[in-house]
């Protein structure tokens, strides 16, 4: 019974992490899937959202800026607004860059954001980070706090999904696709490409900021290690590409699936014996080595998915121009 309860809590945790990552992949889907903006600086927006909501919602602590103790939803909104503002400033400068140049620019800007947050110790407690970030529903008894938090995350993902589906099918969404597939054609049709690209960049960044705020709440801690680009940028890309970029459901599926693989592989490897003999080689301390095997497994799963489903598990469907093959898919694969 305890075992079953334990697995239940673990499943909730998996879905919660998956849901938080889904917010990030949906944000990236707006930028890359809809408009073709290659944002390689997700970690920067995650960090901005995480820190801003943590600072605004936490009670006073002498080691960093804060003491505002604002309600948690205010923290979420502030995270989105601040990320959007920063995205606007970055976008004004960089949005004209073509995808690979934009990628380089965003990597640099994300690292600048992360380094600023890491070094402005008066505000962020520097490399030590901010502990005790208030989490929604934390005062409910176990397991209801976890259930309520999961439901909150699911509701947020659901709302974003519905809004993005609307946007995707609307004229606005069709302009985005047009820009992605051929900027010149969109321009010839009289669309102000820069403005649309900027809108998409800002919207995506706001969602990433929200994802960061949720992440800080869930771990109840935010520090420079939390927004390591491997987990906050590249893992999100893996999720979107595996799930199917350009498809909102694919983005959510990719996030939950890849996170599940990432997390569950440890359970599989934890059943490995402590020592083993393979082809005559004695391998000691397997559980420690197995931690690296997990990273290999992630690569393997991604390879399998991309070989089997070359446009992601749930490929893009084109509601606006039914029947036409997604011409963008070919070119985007090579860069993705």
């Amino acid at each position, binding site marked *: 019974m305890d075992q079953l309860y334990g697995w239940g809590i673990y499943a909730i945790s998996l879905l919660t992490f998956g849901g938080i990552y889904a917010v990030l992949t949906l944000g990236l889907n707006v930028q890359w899937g809809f408009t073709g903006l290659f944002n390689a600086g997700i970690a920067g927006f995650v960090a901005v959202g995480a820190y801003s909501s943590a600072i605004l919602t936490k009670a006073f602590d002498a080691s960093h800026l804060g003491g505002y103790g604002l309600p948690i939803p205010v923290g979420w909104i502030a995270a989105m607004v601040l990320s959007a503002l920063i995205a606007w400033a970055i976008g004004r400068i960089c949005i004209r860059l073509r995808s690979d140049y934009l990628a380089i620019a965003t990597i640099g800007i994300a690292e600048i954001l992360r380094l600023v947050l890491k070094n402005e110790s008066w505000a962020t407690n520097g*490399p030590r980070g901010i502990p005790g970030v208030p989490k929604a529903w934390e005062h409910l008894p176990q397991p209801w706090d976890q259930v309520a938090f999961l439901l909150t995350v699911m509701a947020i993902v659901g709302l974003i999904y519905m809004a993005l589906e609307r946007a995707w099918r609307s004229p606005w969404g069709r302009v985005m696709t047009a820009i992605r597939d051929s900027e010149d054609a969109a321009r010839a049709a009289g669309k102000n490409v820069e403005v649309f690209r900027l809108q998409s960049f800002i919207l995506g960044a706001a969602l990433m900021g929200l994802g960061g705020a949720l992440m800080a709440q869930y*771990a*109840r801690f935010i520090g420079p290690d939390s927004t390591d680009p491997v987990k906050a940028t590249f893992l999100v890309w893996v999720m979107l590409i595996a799930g199917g970029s350009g498809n909102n459901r694919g983005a959510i599926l990719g996030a939950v699936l890849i996170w599940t693989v990432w997390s569950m592989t440890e359970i599989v490897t934890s059943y*490995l014996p402590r020592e083993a003999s393979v082809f005559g080689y004695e391998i000691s301390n397997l559980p420690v080595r197995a*931690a690296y095997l*997990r990273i290999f497994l992630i690569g*393997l799963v991604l390879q399998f998915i991309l070989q089997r489903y070359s446009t992601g598990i749930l490929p893009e469907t084109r509601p606006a121009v039914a029947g036409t093959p997604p011409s963008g898919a070919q070119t985007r694969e090579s860069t993705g």
Partner: protein
Amino acid sequence: MKKLLLAGAAALGATAAQADEVKIGSVAGVTGPIAEIIANLMEARDLAASHVNEQGGMFDGDTLTLVVADSGCDPNAAVDAGTKVVNVDQVVAIVGPNCSGATLSLAQSVAIPSGVVTLSESATSPAITGLDDNDLLFRAAPSDAYQGIALANFVLASGVSSVVVTYANDDYNAGLGAEFIKAFEAAGGTIAASQVHEPNKASYRSEVATLAAAGADAMVLFAYYGSSGVTIVRNSLETGAYTKIFGADGLVDEEFITQIGAENLTDAYFTTPGADDTTGSWKAYMDLASGLSAPTGPYVANAYDVTFLMALAVEKAGSTDRSLIAAALREVATPPGEVILPGEWAKAKALIAAGTDINYEGATGSIDFDAAGDVPGIYQLHTVTSEGTFKSELLK
């Protein structure tokens, strides 16, 4: 993948058939920025568990199993790792994780709400002291605040009153650096220049040049040797900036000597939270730990201690009921009681069975937890011998 799953399923079937096991979560940053240090810690944890199992095991011959989970020194990964060991593996208690951020997030979002005791061997952030933890978060490493004072006093005592400080911008080294600067200035020393450096750069010549321009007597360096320590010392020696170097745990690894050369480190001094190597408990540990790759490496003895101590606490509690562990941990770690040294599991087990109080004296010190679950610091001074090894003595 399929083969692996099958192998996993087979192993699962095998463990179910064995005698009962008592599980303790062994969470550590196995991958991530300090993986090479952690590998030594994991050996020490395993060694402690093997001593328990060789001398009668837990309760009525049950096996003590350490369930490894990777926290990767990442606060989010630590939440995931903690959720797994607490819920899926149903561990009684947790030893680890290592990095302070990971420890804080695991404790706050998983262990404390679930009522599971966490005992870290190496989390040194002062934030842990003040955390509202229902007496569920303990550590066997002294807070950074103490090591900063210890090193500052040693530097002044060795006749150096003006130093330059450079520290890596990570939670451990930056925290230590800030505490050192505070303590050194408070004790009357002069900080000619202080500087933060980002780890993992190919060269630190410009940083070293800035420090050299300040013209102090020595350089104090807080860094992990792998990510920036070796390069900074090398750059400093190449340019003749500073040859007298003080440092802390992150540099104490024989690989550091190998890369720099023992002949270049004759005027280098390093402190680590360590142990009084004149005590019987340290000798007992060293006799047992000779098979480890690095028995005196940073936090390796602490890793042995936390694992052994946690096993004692579970034995003392007499059951795998999580709610009894915190009180039992305090009882077995602090006086009064019959002294138990590292490795003396059979003796401890017999005493606990007889209802006698015990008091574990670990390799790293007496591990008497204060009200916040912290331990006072004992520090060692390491110097480099001409054979390329570290010579350690207790810092008074």
